[in-house]
């Protein structure tokens, strides 16, 4: 790839999402971000879960692993530890990430594994035809809540801050340029990066359209005053009931998991040619097991 990369270098199958699906913009942002970072497609692995969102691995021209529902992060962690030289991106739906898979998210944030996590948050279970998701608004009626959802939605940004996130942003399919920037920075971040993307589902959520969101989203990237290094401020913004923001909410430097593991090989484990070279341990063994 001597030439400069463009999003086209990351194209694969034609996407089968519904016309107007927010996920198209997410795909495009991923492709643009990878191109701008000058990453060769074969040095990237995109891991996705199950859902409309999960199909993104079919449309991205990199290595892909379309895992089972809610388990993108454990698999992505295994890939990153196996090959530190790869850029590992995980993409999931809101059900994937905040429903069945939420525990893995909290622990991935704690571990600060070097994975960029892009959540396509459409507030519904799209692929199963529109049921309530963890980010469906309370009171909203869906096929599985015909009398209105009874629970408060989860707040990904608040949870991630509470879990100790070192890179936390929210983007919107309505603003591809910003979304691309946020993903690009997330990939650049050496550690776990969560980017929650408001990605409307016109098919099953007629209420929260692009227009509806546009009126409600405040862009903190344009707010010169915002200091992404201030955790207290980040919480105030995330906790606020009346403003929903997009932009880089918080970033903090920390050593990623593969940098913290004691004695962990500097070069990719995947590169090793295996063979019983055990002199490093044999001494220990004889001591331990010789009666």
């Amino acid at each position, binding site marked *: 790839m001597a030439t400069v990369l463009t999003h086209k270098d990351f194209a694969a199958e034609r996407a089968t999402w519904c016309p107007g699906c927010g996920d198209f913009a997410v795909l495009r942002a991923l492709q643009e971000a990878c191109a701008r970072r000058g990453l060769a497609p074969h040095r990237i692995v995109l891991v996705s879960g199950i859902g409309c969102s999960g199909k993104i691995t079919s449309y991205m021209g990199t290595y892909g692993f379309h895992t089972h529902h809610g388990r993108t992060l454990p698999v992505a962690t295994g890939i990153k530890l196996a090959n530190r030289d790869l850029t590992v991106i995980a993409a999931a739906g809101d059900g994937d990430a905040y429903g069945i898979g939420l525990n893995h998210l909290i622990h991935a944030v704690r571990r600060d594994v070097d994975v960029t996590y892009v959540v396509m948050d459409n507030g519904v279970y799209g692929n199963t035809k529109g049921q309530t998701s963890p980010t469906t608004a309370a009171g909203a009626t869906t096929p599985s809540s015909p009398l209105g959802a009874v629970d408060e939605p989860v707040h990904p940004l608040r949870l991630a801050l509470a879990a100790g996130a070192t890179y936390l942003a929210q983007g919107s399919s309505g603003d591809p340029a910003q979304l691309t920037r946020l993903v690009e920075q997330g990939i650049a971040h050496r550690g776990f990066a969560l980017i929650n993307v408001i990605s409307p589902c016109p098919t099953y959520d007629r209420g929260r359209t692009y227009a509806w969101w546009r009126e409600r989203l405040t862009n903190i990237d344009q707010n010169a005053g915002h200091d992404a290094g201030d955790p207290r401020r980040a919480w105030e913004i995330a906790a606020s009931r009346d403003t929903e923001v997009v932009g880089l909410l918080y970033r903090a430097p920390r050593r990623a998991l593969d940098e913290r*593991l004691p004695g962990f090989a500097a070069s*990719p484990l995947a590169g090793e040619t295996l063979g019983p070279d055990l002199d490093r341990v044999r001494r220990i063994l004889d001591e331990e097991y010789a009666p």
Partner: protein
Amino acid sequence: MLDVAWLIGGKTGEGVDSAGEIFARAAARAGANVHTFRLFAPIIKGGPTSYEVRAADAPVHARADGLDCVIALDDETAVRHGPALRPGGLLLTDAGRPAATAANGAVVCPVPFTALARDLGGPIVKNIVALGVSARLLGLDAAVMRETVRRRFDDKSARVQEQNTAAVDAGWRHAETHLAGHARAAGVPRTAAAGRWLLSGNDAIALGALAAGCRLYASYPITPASDILEWMAAHLPAVGGAAIQTEDEIAALGLVIGAGYAGVRAMTATSGPGLSLMTETMGLAGMAEIPAVIVAAQRPGPSAGMPTKHEQSDLLHMVYASHGEFPRIVLTPGTLEECFADTALAFNLAERFQCPVIVAADQDLVLARSTASRLPLDAVRIDRGERLTDAEAVRRGDTYERYALTASGVSPRAVPGQAGIRFLSSGDAHDYRGVIDVEDPEVRRAMVDKRLRKTRDVWRYAAGTAAEGEGDVLVISLGSPCGPIREAAARLRRNGRPVRFLQIRCLWPFPSHEIGPEVARARRVVVVEHNATGQVASLVRGHVGGHEKVTGLRRYDGLPFRPADIEAGVWPPS
């Protein structure tokens, strides 16, 4: 011929385990073959616990049928284990406690363990005093015992070391003066212990993984598999790898699959509850054709069951759990050496057949410590299966089919990072290239057949069974019962009751081609297993028939078989 069984029992916290371990080490250093058995309660402190050591000059792989010497640090031990003493056996109680009575001709000797310990500065060393007494009575060299004790406290202060070696001597002297009459004539032979190890099945499994090139280990603590996590956490860093303790077993297997997808040998180990949690994730490895090695150390179920006891009741789960159909391999080691070899082999099979491989162990197999000649770490052969070289990748480019239909069903594997190609691995049904949402019924059928075809070839790489002895009574078993079975079979043969023993080394794919003829030739078949429903027996019937002659010998009370159980069960005294 030497074959003594010694047991020390008391409350957790009284140093029972360390005394037992020291005794086992000392006997081994003295050149004896050793096999141990621990009985412990799921109570951290104050629960009843005992450590049984069998020492013999011939190799031993089972608990003895009876005990020769019981050290009862508390009354419960005397009550619980005294009855197991053989005629002439010794029940050593802590002097001053209510005198215990001994059953069937055993001798009760009160010994002032605590008193002697106090004189040395603390009751805490009473277990070591007991070791001194035991050494004298069982003819174990005093110097060996003293040295073993000293080494045990290597990292402690000189004072502590002296206090403990002094305790050995005190015990020895006490036995010398008061119990010499009870001493055993036959002492432990002083053959060289060089090149021999004393280790557990968990140790052997961990060593097998290390030797096979396992570099990532992920698991969640659980009895009796936690040892492996702790071993890996201690030793993988030395080879540049890492052990990750995950939030649950689903994540553990997820990590292993991610690493396998990316080309690194990885493993997880668990017991029943964790294995059940992994059920869905195992199917991902099956569908996406990712190598994954899972060690399953069984304990009594269902649910939390009996965490500190023994059983083999997860076998059909290993064979059939997870929705849908995909190839998997279930290896069933029955000895320390097999724990090592099968774990190493599991990595080869997982990569060659691109599927999950389960190493099915059980509590007794992984926790019992026995002597074995140093495991052949360098002898381990590494076979990474059919892989696409980087050169081929560049040449093939877009024509590369990750899931190509092949005669063997195995498609040459590439890993992320290889230039020139890209592919998708998916838990969704997919075609030869990995493309999902392919609705064509023909493709679906072809891909199902392709995957299921893969393991047909397994017998070229793994043994299905191992048979020994001749006789028209066929004993079939797997796992830890193999030890007591071999001992029982030898005795039966000596008593003119010929039995043939068929050990299943690979439970799945089921080795019908080997078991079928054996069952056909036998007059009576006894399937020996540690469960209530006869899981292995049901596989035998389902695959090779013989309904009329396949019977079962089953134990499911949490304890491993003793050789005598097998002897009586296989060939009931008529």
